């Protein structure tokens, strides 16, 4: 009757097998093609490996000229994640702690607007942010309007990104808040810490997995999104994602686009490898 238990590593790997299979076939193998292409010689036709092998694409990709774009990408993504956190936390906290039996309904209500086509939503924002748009007119009432509206500004891009990615912050945060033991807040108040101190010392660490997950889910796709900046941003809205996109579209430079993508992946892999123990449970 005594029977050895399935060892933990085996159980874990079995559970991971379907995901691993899927990603190996539909992500890693295709990415291998990208890696191959990144070492090819440039040609104007797509999807052809053109010899000789060269690292030229990598040299171009590492050109410091791309640094400002990299910086802008991070700024967009970072500010978007921050904005999502600032907007998402009150929402998540409220739903988790005060919404009672309307929890699910409110959560779903966060997602409902996303049934509208992405482009339709963005165009709606364009209209709202325009010089003649509602936002500008409302702000005009308090003298905060801006000539020509807020369209084609970095602010508009961040707003658009925030709008698009907010659910990706709210849901993980909600999940974390719902699990959070509110008695710890009471303990903190009890020991004399006010709301702000308690938030940073007890609540935030308590919901940290959710913050991490949400930030990851917002930060990374926001950094890769180039459609939103293109539609809402001004002239200088090139992001790392859009540069890569440009290299593929218009047949500009497929090996360069591939090389940049490979570098981006490497960067993320390194960051993941170096992340702290605390994050390991989430990412």
């Amino acid at each position, binding site marked *: 009757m005594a029977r050895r238990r399935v060892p933990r590593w085996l159980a874990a790997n079995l559970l991971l097998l379907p995901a691993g299979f899927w990603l190996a076939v539909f992500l890693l193998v295709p990415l291998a093609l990208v890696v191959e292409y990144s070492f090819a010689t440039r040609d104007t036709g797509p999807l052809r490996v053109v010899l000789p092998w060269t690292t030229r694409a990598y040299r171009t990709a590492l050109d410091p000229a791309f640094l400002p774009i990299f910086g802008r990408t991070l700024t967009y993504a970072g500010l978007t994640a921050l904005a999502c956190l600032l907007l998402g936390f009150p929402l998540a906290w409220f739903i988790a702690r005060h919404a009672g039996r309307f929890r699910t309904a409110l959560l779903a209500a966060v997602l409902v607007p996303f049934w509208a086509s992405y482009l339709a939503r963005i165009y709606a924002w364009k209209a709202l942010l325009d010089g003649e748009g509602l936002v500008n007119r409302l702000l005009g009432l308090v003298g905060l309007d801006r000539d020509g509206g807020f369209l084609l500004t970095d602010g508009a891009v961040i707003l658009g990104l925030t709008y698009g990615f907010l659910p990706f912050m709210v849901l993980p945060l909600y999940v974390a808040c719902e699990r959070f033991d509110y008695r710890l807040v*009471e*303990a*903190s*108040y*009890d*020991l*004399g810490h*006010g709301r702000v101190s308690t938030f940073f010392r007890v609540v935030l*660490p308590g919901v940290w997995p959710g913050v991490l997950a949400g930030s990851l889910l917002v930060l990374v796709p926001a950094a890769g999104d180039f459609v939103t900046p293109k539609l809402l941003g001004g002239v200088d809205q090139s992001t790392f994602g859009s540069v890569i996109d440009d290299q593929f579209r218009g047949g500009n430079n497929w090996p360069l686009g591939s090389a940049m993508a490979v570098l981006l992946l490497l960067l993320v892999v390194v960051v993941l490898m170096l992340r702290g123990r605390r994050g390991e449970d989430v990412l």
Partner: protein
Amino acid sequence: MTDEPPGGFHPVAERTPDTYAPVEVGIYGVTKCFSDQVAVDGIDLQVHEGEFFSVLGPSGCGKTTLLRMIAGFADPDSGRIELDGVDMVGVPPYRRDVNTVFQSYALFPHMTVWDNVAYGLRRKRLRGAELRRRVAEHLELVQLARFAKRRPTELSGGQQQRVAIARALAARPRLLLLDEPLGALDAQLRKQMQIELMQIQREVGTTFLYVTHDQEEALVLSHRVAVMNAGRVEQVGYPEDVYERPSTRFVAGFIGTSNIMDVKVSDMDGEWLELTGGGVERLRAVLPDGHSARHGQQLSVTVRPEKLHLYDADGEEQPPPGWCSLAGTVADVVYTGMSTQYVVDVPGGDSLVAFVQNTRRISDAGTPGQPVRMAWDPEFTVVLDSPARGGAEPAEAERTKEEVH
């Protein structure tokens, strides 16, 4: 009753609270309901500065709820709570100079034991060496110095509870609320901690509001004790008042073991009542001050098991004349270490309990089935406030009442 100067004899002089000290915690007509139930039901209590005040009561009687309102985690539905004379309604917990040892510990899981204890001190702007000293001191107090770097999940239940105590104590508030702070500790450590808590309380002069389910603990540690039941306070008084002169049937049944008998007044002789019932041959009791009784009145009386003396039914030693006494049969003998507990069936279907200290080896004790005579000095017969109720056990009866809400 609560503000009277000490009435009874007080065995340990330095334990006497200064009942003329200002009121630190004033609870006036406080009521708190949950959706379907009254958890705290119109409580009035005043705790004085520097007092060690205990609240005793059955599970679910509203002790934790009361403490939560004092700490500020919940607002009373009606009534008023004053700390130091100031109405506390609307004052958030972190502005009250009150700390709590939580029944569920509520330790911060993401902090080490050390950081948990330091948490309240940081708020008080303690830094560097001073902070380290205070934390170390309190960790030593609860014998956890070597666990400083662990996380709460890596501790045993008792160890966690000790961290909770250290954390609340370290902040040295004016008022400390302790919600069954020693519940998870073994008797040995518990006794040590009791002594530590008492010493700290006497030294620092912090007012303690102490919830416990251990009656002995309450009696030993406290200046005064309140006994709660189903959201109400049934009796407030000095430990020996509550123990020796329980005012209600509930208190008598709840504190220690009580032999409660439903009897009838058959005669009155000055302050002495002659009673019949419970199979006792001659039952007498002193009428409590301020009470009156009439002939034929139904009453409940009680006598503590340790006041009962056991005599061999046919032995030569017999109770002194004038004692209340009755014959019975030993039904059960339970060895409890320090003493042995005899359950004696008496005529009429009831049974009484007597404690006999094990001053001898236990093999000297009686055995089940043995006929015995029980007797006690009538001055230990205590007349209870509340009228006799149905045959239910007191605690049971209270719970049933609770269900009415």
